[in-house]
Every structure is written in C-alpha cells, then in structure tokens.
C-alpha cells in the first residue's frame, strides 16, 4: 500500500471498528492498550494534557486508537488493507438509496467483493459505511445507509479499508496476546512463566533479522519467525496458517511496534524536563505553575508539530529496512565446508580480535567468562543484580550453547552469517560487519561443526570422511 504524495494532511487516519469486518461475534472484547513505563513516568499533566491540548496519551491514541477502534495512520509502513480510491461522483437513486461511483488509479483494480467504504477526506472523513451492492467492473457501490454528510467528488476513500489490520488484530488476540500482551509489550498473562521472555515490540527491536545492524527488521524476518517459530524458545511455529493470516499478523505486529516506537519518541521529547523525577528536582527551584505553563506551550506548539516529523522518521527507517539495500548479502558464496575451513574458523573464534570465546566459551558451550561477570546497565549505569549478559529489555541472556545445534534465528548458513555480520539486535552479540566475509564463512563452517565434534575444540569430522574417522589419526591441532 503506497502513500500518495499529494496527501499532505497532518493526520490521515480513519476509524476501523472491529466488529464490522472480523466475523467474530465478539460482543465482549473490551481490551485496552497499555502505556509504557516511560509514559507513566512522566508527570500526569504531560501524560494527559488538558481539554484542548493533547498530552502524550492523546497524541498516541489519536494516531493508533484502541484495540476496539484501531486508527490507521497511513503514513506508517503498514499494510492496513483495503484499496484506496477516489470518489468519482455520488448519486441518489429514486428510492433514496445512495450510490457512489469510485475512480481507481491507473494500473490498479478494484476488489471483486467489497463490504464497506471508509471515507478518509472530505466532510465524511472518519466514517465507515457498509456497502449493500457492489459492482467491481464499474466501481459502483450501493451504500446501505446514507452518509451523515455530503460526499464530494475527489474525496479519498478506502474500499474494505482496514481489513488486514482488523483480521490481524483478531488473530493476534487469539494466538499471540497471551504471551506478547494486548499491546505487544511482551507482558501477557503467560509471559512471566517463560524463559526467554516474549518479545516486547515496543522498542522496535527484533533479534533475528536479515538486515544490517543499523536497520530495523524487515517484514520477511517477522514472517519467518511467525512461520517457523524460534526453536529453543516458546515461540512456536504457526506454519499451518494461511498466507493471508500470516500477512495480517505480521502487519498487526508492525502496527504495535510502530505504536510502541512512536510512544517512545514522544516520551523522549518530554522525559528530560517533564518526567516525575525531573519535576521533583525542578520544583526545588521553580514553581509548579510555571512548569505547567511551559509544558502546555510545549505540547501545544512544539510537540504537535514534531509528532508528525517523528512519524516521518519512523516511517522512513522502517520502510528502508524493508528494502533491498538493508539486506545483509554476503559478497562471496559460502566457502565449502572442510576441515581446513573449520580450523580457520576455530582460530578466528579464539582470536583476540573477535573474542567469541569470551561469551560463548572455549568449547562453545555458552559458558564464557562474561556469563559470570557483573555488567552495567547502559541506561542506568548501575550494575545488574545477577551476573551475566543482559539484553535491551533487561532480561538475562545466555550466550548460545553452540554444542546443541539449536539456532534460534535459523540454521541456514546465511542465517548464521547474518547473526555474525549484523549481530543480534538488542542483545550483547555485537555486529562484526567489518570482518571479511571470507572469515565469517569460516566461522560459520566451524559453528555448524561444533555439535558433531568428537572432542571440544577439535575440528570435527568432515562429512565425507565419516567412515574413515575410525582409522585416521585425529588431526593435529
């Protein structure tokens, strides 16, 4: 779904009422999004604003809505679903039934079936009207009810807008929310019992990606995880869902991620001056009323403006991450597996420059010295309570035990290449993007051989020499 450049409105959104399309008789789904800890740490006036001025919560809700009424912020690189069209003209038949003729862009076609129209601009902006009769060829939609305002030619509307994101939400609530939480905060009811914890999407970090270390996750990466799961964790494979279902879930996850990221960016604008802690220290010198006045000005003028550019930034980076340019592609094909390559890989593994053994251990058992050292939390600069490595969500991470042969991000050579090249985002596995690709391939060959080593640190048995292994002397190492 592309953005039409001519639409230069501040907020372009339309309401998606869940009950309309989902087909699920959920009379009772009254879920709600939660606000992040960062938001709740701001002073209440910053969170809630005033009657006329939007606080963080309102800025967020207006662009993303609540689960029962999702808002589609069209700027965001999410496939909300539906086909964007323009109103050609609206006529009223003799019996009072309105008929709208839709114009569609060159090269695009209207869907065969249609259930509803969402008006996005013009007098009826924000309204969803059911379609009682639909002619895909002529683009004529007979409306079930008369729109509340007049519909003018040139008004932008969506046919079956939001279907993807709505069905994504229903699927997400059914399959994902009990671990990942209604808001994608990784804090559903089941989450507390799981090791590792389910992903909290809200800082926009996904660990197992195919993109370079500066980019976000591509759609493909999230799709891969949904389809194949993450072996060794409680993220199961949902292989048997249909492609449409996969797509809908991926888009909804992106929606939740973008919501979380947008919230973080808003909070970042405010937290240094208007968090509760900041307020406490400022109250020593300043008066509350002054602070409030300053806040309201900031909210009304600056933040309102910058909300849009923050959105632009987000959209930019997420869209770029989905492009070819962000993909990590090795410059050479994989060096064929051989004991020579593995030996070289082992050397690199133990080398000072790469220092893999520091975390992954001399034998690859995931028990390197870093796992018993206390490290500092980068945000608070305090030591973590327990020894070992932590990730950006403050969870304790074990470096991968390479002897098990279980690779969470995928076991293909390219997957391992990408783990090394781009690192594992959010975790302490750093990016080794400056390492020559030849070296990375050697390390990959070594890693794949570790589960089959006859002795730890040995170079393992080459596959074709499996039968010969009993007669050949162990390689000199």
């Amino acid at each position, binding site marked *: 779904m592309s953005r039409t450049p001519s639409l230069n409105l501040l907020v372009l959104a339309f309401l998606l009422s869940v009950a309309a399309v989902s087909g699920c008789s959920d009379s*009772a789904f009254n*879920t709600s999004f939660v606000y992040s800890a960062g938001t709740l740490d701001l002073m209440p006036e910053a969170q809630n604003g005033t009657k006329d001025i939007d606080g963080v919560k309102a800025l967020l809700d207006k662009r993303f809505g609540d689960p029962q009424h999702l808002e589609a912020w069209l700027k965001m690189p999410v496939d909300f679903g539906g086909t964007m069209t323009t109103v050609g003209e609206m006529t009223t038949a003799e019996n009072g039934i309105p008929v709208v003729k839709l114009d569609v862009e060159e090269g695009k076609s209207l869907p065969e079936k249609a259930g509803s129209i969402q008006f996005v601009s013009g007098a009826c902006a924000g309204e969803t009207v059911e379609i009682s009769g639909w002619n895909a060829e002529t683009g004529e939609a007979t409306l079930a009810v008369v729109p509340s305002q007049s519909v003018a030619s040139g008004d932008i509307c969506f046919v079956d807008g939001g279907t993807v994101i709505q069905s994504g939400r229903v699927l997400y609530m059914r399959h994902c929310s009990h671990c990942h939480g209604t808001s994608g905060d990784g804090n559903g*009811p*089941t989450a*507390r019992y799981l090791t590792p914890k389910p992903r909290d999407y809200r800082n926009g970090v996904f660990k197992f990606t195919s993109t370079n270390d500066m980019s976000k996750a591509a759609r493909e990466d999230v799709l891969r995880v949904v389809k194949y799961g993450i072996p060794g964790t409680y993220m199961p494979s949902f292989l048997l869902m249909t492609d449409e279902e996969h797509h809908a879930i991926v888009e909804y996850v992106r929606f939740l991620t973008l919501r979380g990221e947008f919230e973080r960016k808003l909070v970042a604008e405010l937290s240094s001056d208007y968090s509760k802690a900041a307020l406490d220290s400022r109250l020593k010198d300043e008066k509350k009323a002054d602070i409030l006045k300053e806040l309201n000005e900031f909210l009304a003028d600056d933040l309102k403006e910058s909300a849009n550019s923050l959105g632009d930034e987000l959209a930019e980076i997420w869209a770029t991450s989905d492009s070819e340019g962000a993909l990590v592609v090795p410059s050479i094909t994989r060096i064929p597996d051989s004991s020579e390559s593995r030996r070289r890989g082992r050397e690199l593994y133990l080398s000072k420059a790469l220092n893999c053994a520091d975390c992954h251990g001399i034998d690859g058992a995931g028990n390197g010295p870093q796992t018993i050292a206390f490290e500092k939390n980068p945000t608070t600069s305090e030591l973590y309570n327990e020894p070992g490595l932590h990730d950006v969500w403050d969870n304790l991470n074990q470096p991968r035990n390479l002897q098990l042969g279980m690779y969470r991000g995928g076991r293909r050579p390219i997957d391992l290449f990408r783990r090394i090249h781009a690192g594992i985002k959010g975790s302490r596995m750093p990016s080794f993007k400056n390492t020559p690709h030849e070296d990375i391939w050697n390390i990959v060959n070594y890693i794949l051989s570790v589960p089959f080593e006859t002795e730890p640190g040995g170079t393992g048995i080459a596959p074709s020499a499996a039968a010969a292994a009993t007669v050949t002397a162990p390689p000199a190492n």
Partner: protein
Amino acid sequence: MATVTPALDAHGHADDHSHGHAHQQSFISKYVFSQDHKIIGIQFLCTTLLMLMVGGALALAVRWQLAFPWQNMPVIGQLFGLFQTEGGQISPEFYTMLFTMHASVMIFLVIIPILAGAFGNFLIPLQIGCDDMAFPILNMLSYWFMWPAMVCFACSFFWAGGTAGPGNGWTSYPLLSDLPQAAPGSGAPQTFWLFGLTLIGVSSMMGSVNYLTTIINMRAPGMTLFRMPLTIWSMFITAILQAFALPVLTAAGFMLVFDRLGTIFPTTIHSVFFIPANIIVNNAEPTVGGGQPLLWQHLFWFYSHPAVYIMLLPAMGMVSDMLSCMCRKPVFGYKPMVYSLAAIAGLGFIVWGHHMFTSGMNPALGMTFMTSTMMIALPSAIKTFNWIGTMWGGNLKFNAVLLNCAGFVAMFIVGGLSGIFMAAVPVDIYFHDTYFIVAHFHYVLFGSTLFGVFGAIQFWFPKMFGREMNDTVQKWHFVLSFIGFNGTFFPMHLLGIAGMPRRYADPYLHGYLSHLLDMNRFMTVSAIIMGLAQFLLLGNFFYSMFRGKKVGRNPWNANGLEWTAPSPPGHGNFDIAPIVYRGPYEYSSPESDALGQDYILQTVPHVAGIKSVAHH
C-alpha cells in the same frame, strides 16, 4: 443361627470412646469437633455439597471456553482484574488450571468424601446396629483433615498471581508436573496441590480403617455377613480398596514432592524419581536424571483405578438398598451382587494399565491389561441385570428416589458399555485422550454415582433430620439434571469419535474440528441447565432441614436397622439394642403378608408357622 439375649451394653465400645454420658457438651464439641458419626456424616455431606458447586462452577468455565473460545468469560474474566487488559479473555494456562481443579475438586473433595465420608459414616453404624464407629476420634479427624486439604487446594489457586494454578491435569503426569519450569502452575501451586492430595488421602485412610474395623467387629448380634445390606458390603469393600490402594498414591505423591523439593525449600537438591537425564525445559539447566516418567503413571493409576471403583461401589450398594425398598421386593440375586462387588474390587487392582495403552509401556502389558479390563465388565453387567431384575414385577413407588436409581441404572449401562471400546487396545489407540473418555467417566461418575447420591440424599434425609424432602422439587431436580446431563455428555461420545482431543482450550484451531462449535455450544447450554438445577437440590436440602414435613422412624417402610432408630437418632443411636433375625430385603414376603404389611424389619423375629422362603 443362634438367638442372642441382648445385653444393654453389649456393643463393643472402643476404649477411647468418650461416651458422652457427659451430657453437657459445648456447641463446639457437639457440632463442630463432634465424634458422633451422624454429625460427622452430615458435616461431610454439607461440605461436599458445597464443593460440588465449586467443582461445577469450574466445569462451567471450561464449557464456556469451549462454547465461546477466547471471549470474555463471565465473572471470572473480570475477577480481581485478572484478565483486564485482555478484555476478560482467559489465558491458556488458566484453562489448564480450570480442568485440573475441576477434576481434583470433584474427585477428591466431592465424590470420594460424599460416598465414604458422608454416607459411609452416617449409615454404617446404623445399618449394622451399633452405636458409633470403632474409632470416634479418628472419625472426627478424618473429617477435619478435609479442611487443610481444601486450604491447600485453595492456596494452589491463588498463589502466583491467580492466573496459573496447577495445570497439569488431575493425573499430574511428570515431566510437566515434575519440573517447576515446565508449566506455569508447576511451581508452588503444584506443590500445594500435592499436599492437598496427601491430606485428603490421610482423611480417606482414617475413614477406611474405621469402617473396616467397625463392620468386622461391631455388628449387632444376628447380623451375619450375608445379612448385611448391600450398602454395608459396598462400604466394606470400598474401604478395603482404599486401604490397599491409597498408600501407593501417597508414596507416589511424596516421590513427586521430593523431585520438586526446590519449590518448598530454597535448595537445589532433589530426587529424580521421574526425571530422565538431559531434558531441557523452558531453557533451564539440563536435568541430571536417571528416572522414568512412566513410573509415575504406573503408581498413580495403581491407586486411581481402584479409586474409580471407590467412587462407584458405595453408590451401587446404596442403589440396591433403595431399589429394593422402592420396588417392595428383595434384591434380585443378593449373593451374586455381593460377589460381583468383590469381583469388581479384586479385578480393579489388575486393570490399571488400561489408562496407559498409548503410553509407551511394554506392549505385552497391553495384552494382559486388555484381558483383565474386559473381564471387569462382567460383574458390572451382572449387577445391571440384577437391578433390572429387582425392578421387574415390583410394586414400584414412583418417587424421586426411584427415578434417581433408575437413572443410575440407565446411565451406568451407557458408561459401562462405552468402557468396552476403551478396553480394546486398538480402538483405544484412537479414543485415548479424546472426548470419548471424558464421556465415559462422566457417565459412570456423574450419571451413575451422583444420581445414586441424589437418590440417597432424599432416601436417608428423614433419618438424618427427622423431616422429609419435598418429592416434587426432587422430581424436577431429577428431570432437569437428567436432561441437562445427557445433553452435555452424550454428544461427547460423538466428539470423541470425531477425534476431538481432551484438554484443548481451542479445538477449533484444527480444520478437522472446526465444525464442532455448534455442538459444543449446545452442550454448554445443557451444562448450564444442569448446573442451575442443582440449586433445586440445595434449596430443597437446606429448606427441608428446618421446614420439611416431620416424619417418624420409618417413613419409607423399609427394612434396614437404621429405620428402627428414632429420626434423627440420638446419641447411641438405638433406644432398644437391635438383634437381627433376617436379611434386609424381606419385602412382600409371606411373613410380611402375615403381618399385614409389605415389609418386615430385620429385627422382627420369625413369624410362627410361616416358612420363610429359602435365601438365594
């Protein structure tokens, strides 16, 4: 058969029986920590009826999820803000807790205590003609051990945030139940559950010791074994089952507790009875191992199979008594009935493997267990034919007692017959862990036992409280429960054939099951009707306790010794020490005709000149 001159203090009192000739008993010692078997029996009855509603509520929650998957669950969804953000949608581990606790509560806190604890306690001394149990203090303790057990079960619900109680099924198979990290409820909640189980086991054990001793030692003069009512036979045999089977469960429970020692004390030391080596669950350290998960299954089912007969036999005995009375005829085939009870119990010890046909145990065992399981259908069939024979040609009193007993027989036929499918190993391969099994055991436990209990409540209510229950209300209760019950559980046979597995929070995820939603909705509606109908029983029970029509000693014109005592019996039970001259089923006999009635109490000596018909 000798005549015996009654001596007023002939009954064997246990030495520690403080004979309450100290009449000034405080309220606490008279009604709370009572040692009188009748009060204890009523205490059990009231507690188990309360637990019945708790277990039923849990079942309705299960049914709700199956009828309206992932939608807001009424009451529970909003309770204590448990699932607020999810809009009242329960989590999957909560569902596992629901069916686990439903089964645990129903089995351990309802069926077993109501049969042995409530009716066993109340009826045994009265029906065999003595003034109390052999060990009254032990009896009192057996009731009061239920409360810590209930507290333990309650703790397991509410520990750890309330959304994840023990969720490993009432069967609690390792490794799911063994490793604290394997499931949300496998930490402290599971340990509480195990303690609750152990305490209930202790309570049962105390009871069984008491019943065995009382029945063997304290029968009234003239009450030979083959003059005992079938209720007593069934209680006796049940007590033997409990005495021999329970220790195995307790041992297994302790083994599991020791495997999980880290959930009780802050320690990493634990046993590995059921834990094999090198298993990684939830990314914890690999297990040290050396144990066998299958061992638990053998130990558990070694108890739990006799347990299901513990949950059935007393009801069978009581139904025989009630049917005989309501049909005004002797029980058809009294001795075969006794031998069948014994055969069921005996065979019950060698069939436990039929719960494990797909478990990966040695296939040779499959063959042996199949044979013994098939054979256990035989005594059950004999009993069924004998019940029908009892009713044949009888002068039937169509009250709710009879209806409940007829319901018992009808449902037992269904439950017994469905068991044959599961006894056949190849067929069980398909049916194991599907709803077919659920249908089977609900038919025998609820359809049979519980309907028998409904009848028994009404039948012995006059003896307990000196008043009668309203028969019309009981009839309504029967009809609604029966219809609701069959509407809920008969379709489960069909669901099982359709391959719907048990313990699934959302079966409709699978294409081959998605068309079963309508059927499940129908079943949930039936279940709700059935659940609401129980309020009729409770209302009738508690109302009649205080406002029911008063009755005398023998409102049903029945034969048993209990009907010679006042209603309710006072302390010491009998104002005239009973001496037994005949069996308990002499209804419509020539002797009774001679007396101008269609029954003749066990304490009535032989009528001169009338030859009593030879016992069968």
